[in-house]
C-alpha cells in the first residue's frame, strides 16, 4: 500500500499528464498570434471526426459474438437516429434511447 504522500504524488502526476494534453495546443498556438493555416483547417474539421471516434470508442467493448451480440446497442442507436430525425430534440433523443437501452439490458438480454 502506498503512503499518503505517495498517493498524493500519483494524483499530481496523473493531473500533470492530463493537463499537458489539455494545455499543449493553447501553449503552442497562443491567442495573440494567428495559428498556421493547417491548424485552423484542422480546428474546423476535427470536431466531427473526433465525435465519430468517441462514438466508436464508447462501443469498443461491445462483442458481436457473445451473449447479447450487440443487439441492445444497435437498437438503442437506431432509435436515437430515428427519434432525432423525427423530433430533432437533443434531450428527447438521448433520454428516450437511454431508457430503451436500460430496458433492453436489464429486462430482455
Amino acid at each position, binding site marked *: 500500500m502506498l503512503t499518503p504522500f505517495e498517493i498524493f504524488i500519483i494524483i499530481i502526476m*496523473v493531473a500533470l499528464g492530463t493537463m499537458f494534453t489539455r494545455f499543449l495546443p493553447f501553449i503552442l498556438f497562443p491567442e495573440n498570434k494567428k495559428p498556421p493555416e493547417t491548424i485552423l483547417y484542422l480546428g474546423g474539421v476535427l470536431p466531427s471526426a473526433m465525435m465519430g471516434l468517441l462514438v466508436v470508442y464508447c462501443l469498443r467493448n461491445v462483442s458481436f459474438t457473445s451473449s447479447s451480440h450487440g443487439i441492445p446497442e444497435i437498437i438503442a442507436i437506431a432509435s436515437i437516429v430515428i427519434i432525432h430525425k423525427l423530433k430533432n430534440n437533443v434531450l428527447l433523443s438521448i433520454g428516450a434511447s437511454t431508457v430503451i437501452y436500460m430496458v433492453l439490458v*436489464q429486462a430482455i438480454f
Partner: protein
Amino acid sequence: MSSKKREVYAAFKAAFPYTIPVLTGFLVLGMAYGVLMKTSGFETKWAVAMSLIAFCGSMQFAAINLLLSPFNPIQALILSIMVNARHIFYGISMLEKYKGLGKTRNFLIYTLCDETFSIVSGVTVPKDINKKYFYFAISFLDYIYWTMGTLLGCVLGGFITFSTEGLDFALTALFVVLFIEQTKKGKVSKISGVIGIISALIALLIFGADNVVIPAMIIILVLLLSGRKKLC
C-alpha cells in the same frame, strides 16, 4: 441583482439543459469510480481529490491500478499522457472558440473533457447570452457533476438498491446525437465525421479495444491532411 450576476445566471440557465445527459452519465460513472476507490481501500478524500485535481474520467479508473502498484510516478505521468492524448485534438478545435476569454480560459482548458468538448463544439451560443459565461457554465457544471458523483459513490456506495445498469448509455447517446448534429453542418463535416468513424474502426480491428485512441488519431490526421485539397 447586478447586471453581471444576471448575465451569469442567464448563461447557467441556458447551458444547463445541454448538460443534463452529462449529469446523468457523470453521476453514474462518478459513483462507480467512488465505489471502486473505496472497495480498493482508499479513503473518500483521495477519490474526491483525484476527481477535483486530475478530472480525467477513464484515466482515473486506470489510475486505480497505479495506486495499487509499487510507487512509480514516471509511469503514472506517461500513462496519463497516452490515455489522454485525444485532448490535444480538442484543444486544436477550441483555439478559436476559447479566444479572448481572459482568465476564465484557463479554467475552460483545465476542465476540457470529452463531454464538454462535444457540447461546446456542437452547440451555438444562444442569442443574448454572454459567450464566456455560457462556456464557463458548461465546463463548471460538468466538473461539478463528476466530483459530486465521486463523492456520492464513496458515501452511499452500498445503499443503492435500484439497478442503474445501462444508465451510462446517456453519454454514448450524447456523442451519437452530437455526431449527427456535427455532420449536419455541411459536406466537409459529413466527410470528416465518416473519416472519424472509419479510422476508429480500423484502429479497433488492428490494435484492439484497449489501444484504439492513439492509432485512430494518427489515421484521422493522415486522412484529413492528405484530403485537405479535396475537402476545401
